[in-house]
């Protein structure tokens, strides 16, 4: 068995190695980062079949839980590690050409720390440890948002930092209240003891925790930082932030509500919050003229959709939500990464300036179309199956309430398709005002192409994918985690 703790140690160690060896290695540090992430991909994939048999519980430093800290790798952790490592390695490949300059080792150090935090948040079995990894993830993403060093980047980074810190204050208050009430920080131990608290205190902890994590997960109304941060960051970082960072925070909320707090009665509220987030995101995206802001607002919409699906309190809903996460990671990464080179080549963020760009950048435009189609849920792309599953799961939940919600979700999708078709119309206009624009280099296109394989061929592997996501659903609904730690 490969020890899952390597998923955290390898990127963390390499990050420090890169910053120490930066002066000797100059611009070859990126290959070190690539090696580390390739190792992560291999480890996370080799863990998958094992975890399906039996979840892995790693005891750290020989102190057994509930006193010591443990890592818990269930189906959720394993599948998310695969998503993080594969998306991470592909985006890193894109960065090879996209990020240039003498200081690039700083970018790779922070990128690896971000990956460390992501793996840690999803794998840890300790509530305070979760907070520490959350801060590793958050601090490295604050800096990466401002990496470009322009005015908008710094402004977005400061704004993200202030709101993110407020979020972490709320999380810490929730942790303090949890410890005061139950005397434990271990998630599995907590799941048993949490129900002994009185309902008012349970609700208080839940509200503090969801508010804190909700800032990072960009749930309405805590998402005002997202459009700025995701649009001002370098495009590769936008892809990371939209691709899996907000999803991780969301999944942590869902995991806590289902298994640790075991308060499924608040799920109806979360479903409404999800639909409101979806509509707010899509309506706001509709009015944008900056291409990256369109994509950022569309991420808010998608997060709302995923939250809605996962709050249905059924295995089918969680299953569909996980599929939508995979779809969103792949398709939103494609969109941000292709848009990245369009911005570099044309020097403009306004998509109205890209009139007829498909003639000059045919490959990029083609991939952009693929990303849009999968995000909208056009068959036979992967997004079709995930959206279809969400609608089916919601209709199964039944009742006038969920049927209204489904209508609103479909309304959101219609708005989404209108603004994306508007952009595609500009891309494929017959006349063009753009003169000397060339296609993006090979390496970034290769990374985008690998992402699009996921959405193109995803439907061939539907049975395998649903067997994994189905296991996640049973992990959450039947509280598998709790039985296996001690």
């Amino acid at each position, binding site marked *: 068995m490969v020890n899952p703790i390597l998923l955290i140690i390898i990127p963390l160690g390499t990050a420090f190695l890169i910053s120490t060896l930066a002066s000797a290695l100059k611009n070859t540090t990126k290959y070190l980062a690539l090696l580390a992430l390739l190792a992560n991909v291999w480890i996370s994939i080799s863990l998958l079949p094992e975890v399906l048999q039996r979840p892995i519980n790693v005891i750290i430093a020989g102190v057994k839980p509930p006193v010591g800290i443990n890592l818990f790798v269930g189906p959720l952790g394993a599948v998310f590690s695969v998503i993080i490592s594969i998306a991470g390695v592909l985006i890193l490949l894109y960065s090879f050409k996209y990020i240039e300059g003498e200081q690039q080792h700083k970018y790779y150090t922070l990128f690896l720390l971000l990956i460390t935090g992501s793996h840690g948040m999803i794998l840890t079995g300790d509530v305070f440890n979760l907070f520490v990894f959350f*801060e590793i993830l958050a*601090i490295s993403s604050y*800096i990466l948002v401002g990496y470009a060093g322009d*005015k908008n980047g710094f402004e977005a980074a400061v*704004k993200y*930092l202030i709101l993110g810190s407020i979020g972490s*204050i709320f999380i*810490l208050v929730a*942790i*303090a209240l949890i410890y005061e009430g139950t005397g434990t920080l271990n998630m599995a131990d907590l799941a048993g003891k949490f129900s002994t608290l009185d309902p008012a205190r349970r609700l208080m902890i839940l509200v503090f925790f969801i508010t804190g994590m909700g800032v990072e997960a960009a749930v309405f109304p805590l998402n005002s930082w997202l459009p700025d941060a995701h649009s001002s960051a370098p495009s590769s970082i936008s892809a990371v932030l939209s691709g899996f960072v907000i999803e991780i925070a969301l999944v942590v909320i869902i995991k806590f509500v289902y298994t640790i707090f075991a308060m499924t009665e608040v799920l109806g509220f979360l479903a409404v919050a999800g639909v409101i987030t979806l509509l707010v995101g899509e309506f706001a995206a509709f009015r944008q003229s900056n291409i990256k802001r369109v994509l950022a607002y569309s991420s808010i919409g998608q997060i709302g959709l995923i939250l809605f699906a996962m709050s249905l309190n059924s295995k089918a809903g969680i299953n569909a939500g996980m599929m939508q996460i995979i779809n969103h990671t792949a398709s939103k990464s494609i969109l941000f990464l292709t848009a990245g080179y369009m911005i570099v080549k044309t020097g403009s963020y306004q998509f109205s300036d890209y009139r007829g760009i498909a003639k000059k950048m045919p490959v990029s435009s083609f991939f952009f179309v693929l990303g849009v189609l999968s995000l909208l849920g056009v068959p036979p792309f992967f997004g079709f199956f995930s959206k279809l599953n969400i609608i089916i799961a919601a209709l199964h939940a039944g009742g006038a309430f969920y049927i209204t919600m489904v209508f609103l979700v479909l309304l959101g999708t219609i708005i989404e398709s209108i603004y994306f078709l508007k952009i595609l119309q500009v891309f494929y206009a017959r006349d063009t005002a753009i003169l000397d624009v060339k296609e993006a280099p090979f390496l970034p296109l290769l990374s985008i192409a690998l992402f699009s394989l996921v959405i193109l061929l995803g439907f061939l592997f539907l049975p395998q994918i649903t067997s994994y996501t189905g296991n996640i659903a049973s992990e959450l609904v039947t509280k598998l985690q709790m039985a296996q730690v001690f």
Partner: protein
Amino acid sequence: MNGILSVSTVLNTASAGLIVLGLYIVFTQKNLIKMVIGLDLADTGVNVLLVSTGYIKGNTAPIFSKAGLQVSQMVDPVPQALVLTSIVIGFGVSALALALIIRLYQKTGTLDTSKIRGLKW
């Protein structure tokens, strides 16, 4: 402490006060430096809350400093370990915030969020 106020009440009130005050500053002030000060205050409030969760009346610090000191005479050491971590993280975030604000000031020449009009605040 004797009288009406117990130590826990004082600590809880102080931490709630600090958190509310800090968040109030963050939400009402327009000066970025003042916002960071607000965050620090709120952070301190959370730290006080964390430490207070481990308090046991009449017990001493969890260090084996004197012979014959029993574990049952000490307060809970876990929150103290947590609060150390939390202080370090808070320090790091404040330092990073101030560094970013310095760079932002160099680009815009102002610390007033209502005057930085690049993005919507």
